[in-house]
């Protein structure tokens, strides 16, 4: 009996010391854990929107969006529709079509926590389907013995045209008020495929903009967008930092 009491006593002692140790580990950190917000940023291209109202030969809308994948990487896409009439010296044509560009952005800007400002570069793959209508044209005649060639009315419509291209993007996005961002980006395009009509050419491609005879193209947009937070993650201190403590 004496021995059993002794055993109980020592057992209790061990238990208490274990409990005490456990209590020491449970100390609460007084600094709140860091959280990172993730979400969808949706916006519209103001440049195309304003041209729709100021230019009578242009109607266009482009919606833009990006989604934060990691602290530096964003999924990004633009979707749009354009209806543009080009009046050149010898040609007048109307291009109508829809396009989508998808890719990613890499943010090179070191943000304060919770902010999503960007100075970024990115890549897009663009696809456009469209139609072209040749309204009027004139025949080039360098020897006008019989008088200059008149402008001829055509009205020929070329349907089912398409183009695909790669786009290199560089731009900025800055928060002006809580969750509202303005940004602009510059784009250089390189055509991959271009299905052209017989006896005419794709002189304008929705999303790609004007073509220059070769594969090269350029564009830019000026956007206003709203950040919709979807979820938060708690940032864990990095392994190396934890070891130092």
């Amino acid at each position, binding site marked *: 009996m004496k021995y059993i009491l002794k055993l109980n006593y020592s057992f209790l002692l061990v238990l208490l010391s274990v409990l005490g140790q456990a209590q020491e580990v449970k100390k609460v950190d007084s600094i709140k854990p860091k959280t990172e917000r993730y979400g969808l940023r949706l916006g519209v291209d103001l440049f195309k929107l304003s041209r729709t109202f100021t230019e009578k030969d242009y109607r266009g809308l482009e919606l833009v969006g990006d989604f934060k994948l990691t602290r530096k990487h964003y999924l990004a896409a633009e979707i749009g529709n354009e209806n543009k009439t080009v009046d050149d010296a*010898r040609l007048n044509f109307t291009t109508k079509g829809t396009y989508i560009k998808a890719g990613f952005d890499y943010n090179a800007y070191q943000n304060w926590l919770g902010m999503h400002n960007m100075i970024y570069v990115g890549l897009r793959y663009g696809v456009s389907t469209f139609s072209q209508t040749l309204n009027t044209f004139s025949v080039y005649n360098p020897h006008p013995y019989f008088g200059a060639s008149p402008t001829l009315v055509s009205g020929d419509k070329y349907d089912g045209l398409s183009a695909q291209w790669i786009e290199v993007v*560089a731009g*900025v996005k800055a928060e002006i008020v809580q969750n509202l961002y303005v940004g602009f980006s510059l784009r250089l395009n390189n055509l991959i495929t271009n299905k052209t009509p017989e006896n005419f050419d794709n002189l304008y491609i929705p999303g790609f903009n004007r073509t220059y005879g070769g594969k090269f193209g350029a564009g830019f947009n000026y956007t206003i967008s709203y950040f919709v937070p979807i979820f938060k993650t708690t940032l864990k201190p990095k392994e190396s930092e934890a070891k130092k403590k």
Partner: protein
Amino acid sequence: MKKIVLLLVVVFSFLGCEKDDICDANTPTTPRLVIEFYDNNAPLATTKAVTKLKAVADGMNGVGVVFNTTATDDSKYLSNDKKIYLPLRAGVDEFSTTYSLTLNSGVVGSENTDKVTFTYSHYNVFVSRACGYKTLFDLTNTNTNILTADSNNWIKDISINKANLESENEVHIKIKL
């Protein structure tokens, strides 16, 4: 801020490019009819230069095709070459052009005018943004119905060398004199 200004400069330099493309003179556009002259007396095909040839299309009130762009007087309408280039009418409903070809034009006593009529169909082919379209022709003549026979033709023989006119780097009609 400097980066933004730089980007804006780049953007506006691109916008400035819109309107300033012009059709390069070396681009093949609407071709003229190319006629080459041959010596009728030579046993082998030998090119021969014409003398003071003037070409006037019907309905042009005697105004000839300019052959010599550097001359300022009436000699600009005269060709002393082995090859001449004649524009063809290409209106929507125009499918023939008649030319009066006058040899030794202006030389009293030796002027000789022959009439040739070219009939053809034509169609428009896209060239480029700057050049627009060009008109190409398909001659529908036969060798025997080009020349209007008269009592003293200086054209001894006329034949179609290439019936589809695509450029001016080819000979479409051969005339022997």
